[in-house]
């Protein structure tokens, strides 16, 4: 359970707390650090999704999903060339 995997974290653009002054990246990071102080964001996204990707344990992912403004935390998928 301590093993980490990559997750895609979808945040609700409209639920950013006022205290972040619309600084979405800061909000993403503080949400992440609240469940895993050492976790880093791999990418942040604004157009394709509203959120970021990061590596978490399953338990950290579950905790993150309960935070306000988090829509879903989905495991990364691997695609193959056709």
């Amino acid at each position: 359970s301590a093993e980490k995997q990559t997750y895609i974290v979808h945040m609700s653009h409209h639920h950013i707390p006022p205290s972040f002054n619309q600084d979405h990246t800061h909000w993403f990071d503080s949400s992440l650090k609240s469940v895993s102080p050492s976790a880093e964001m791999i990418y942040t996204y604004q157009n394709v999704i509203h959120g970021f990707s990061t590596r978490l344990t399953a338990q950290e992912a579950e905790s993150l999903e309960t935070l306000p403004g988090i829509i879903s935390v989905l495991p990364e998928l691997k695609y193959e060339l056709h």
Partner: protein
Amino acid sequence: TTRTPEFLGLDQKSNLFPQSDGESDVVIGVLDTGVWPESKSFDDTGMGPAPSAWNGACEAGTNFTVSNCNRKLIGARFFAKGYEATLGPIDETKESRSPRDDDGHGTHTSTTTGGSVVAGANLLGYAPGSARGMASRARIAVYKVCWIGGCFSSDILAAMEKAITDNVNVLSLSLGGGTADYYRDSVAIGAFAAMEKGILVSCSAGNAGPTSYSLSNVSPWITTVGAGTLDRDFPAYVSLGNGRNYSGVSLYKGPTLPDKMLPFVYAGNASNSTSGALCMPGTLLPDKVKGKIVLCDRGVNARVQKGSVVKEAGGVGMVLTNTAANGEELVADAHMLPATTVGQKEGDEIRKYVISDSAPTAGILFQGTKLGIQPSPVVASFSSRGPNTITPEILKPDIIAPGVNILAGWSGAVGPTGLPDDTRRVEFNIISGTSMSCPHVSGLAALLKAARPEWSPAAIRSALMTTAYTAYKNGKIIEDLATGKPSTPFDHGAGHVDPVSAVNPGLVYDLTADDYFDFLCALNYTPAQIQVVTKRNTTCDTTKSYSIGNLNYPSFAVVVSSDSTGKTGSTVVKHTRTLTNVGPASTYKVTTFSDSKGVQMSVVPNTLTFSKVNEKQSYTVTFTVGDMAAGSNAFGRIEWSDGKYVVGSPVAVSW
């Protein structure tokens, strides 16, 4: 590519796309394994500066500098952070941490979409001609998201994020994952955002055919492309000691076999392994194959690897036979020893001979490139098939395009077989897959975008679908290679792409992001799922009745559940559609066709009159469907015609 421009009628392009002077303003983004910028297909002679709206960049990295880009290849980026987060730092001895293509696949697909004209192109002399992309004057931007270990969705999302802000007009993705629901599928999610920005996203349907329900990339806002053959082949006959000859295909070029019959052995009888017939590494006994031609069965390991295994064990040639999984599909390979691939039926007969004869012999006769092969196109066996696993009420694939034995640009880092011991280097290679048919449609979409800049992605896709053909000139339906019988809309979608007609379709089925939002409501998506896909905070209108069947899609799929039988033992389903006029004022009449008496269609109104461009008219189709055994399918068509334009839609009914 060579031959596909002629096969698609693009060689007449000069008078068909006169409007597409804007072609050089269209940018095609390709998410793949990167690019080999030295390919002649990226020659930018005569091209003006990149379009003013272009925001992209050329990222430097290992073996790649910003000077590798030019006015054809105007963008090159790479995304490895997701891949490295999972698999660790990229091994730079094996692959370049840069946009450089070490695999070949990305160069092949990007040059297929928009490669410049290159005279005298060929692979070892095969498929010679002037190679050119579908939109040979469009610009290309590559986004490297696939590495040796695969293509990770966090990288794919980052690339799509960048492609949107870079301002590409078309996105081409020859990759797929399992059949995750739209809100779990990063390609589907990224494609929704791209579609909202007016970007057409074209994806490969997958190579898991001919099994049903085997499609990838089935979102309705994605153009899903299956694969068909060309009228070109590379025959290489097998002659046996019993006087019989069997046709096969091969791209082998090199020292020919001696001009006599050679000893012939079945790999299954030249191995200590139970799977010896597959010619897997280390399974052939040299003393049993030395100096002989070896019969290998397809399956498990790569076709070209089998040839390498035979060569290593001392064999002088290989006959590779299809099994039931591939039937009569003949995909040609640039084997490293004299080799040919034969269909399942032929292979079974050859196997019988080589096992039963006391001193079996064989020879292989290479015939080079043959054109005018008929029937063509046929649906490739490997092309994934419907119905749509996620939403059976949306008919997929949308369309088929050339995907078998396609010549296009290749990487200089790897040989034509891609095998480590293949030290040959080629400028063009011939490979097969829906990976090859997808970029054909991406490039054709770019051509249409240039000719019709005001069209939405849905309108472009509609034009490609309603003008696609499902029958040969003799009236016979396009054949399915897997069955030898006529293919169905679950195999060919709306049919084979016909760009010459697509530029003037008469009417289109248009769709907006709001329509797709309503579609997700019809799926009963939760607000969270809808927000993941659409990034919208709005919820479905509880006072509205949403229906999947009313998504204004250019095709129809009706799913009859056994509990919906009405009093008369029949089910009534209504679908409404809206047509937008993109041609001259005219009056269209509808005709319907069903291949089953159990399916009746009535259309109200049955005449639509348009007096100006962009005028919209709606109609409702009532399907009255009798009882059939579960798992049955029936097919048909709904066509609107004014005598000049035909706006055709396939119909599929499933029980």
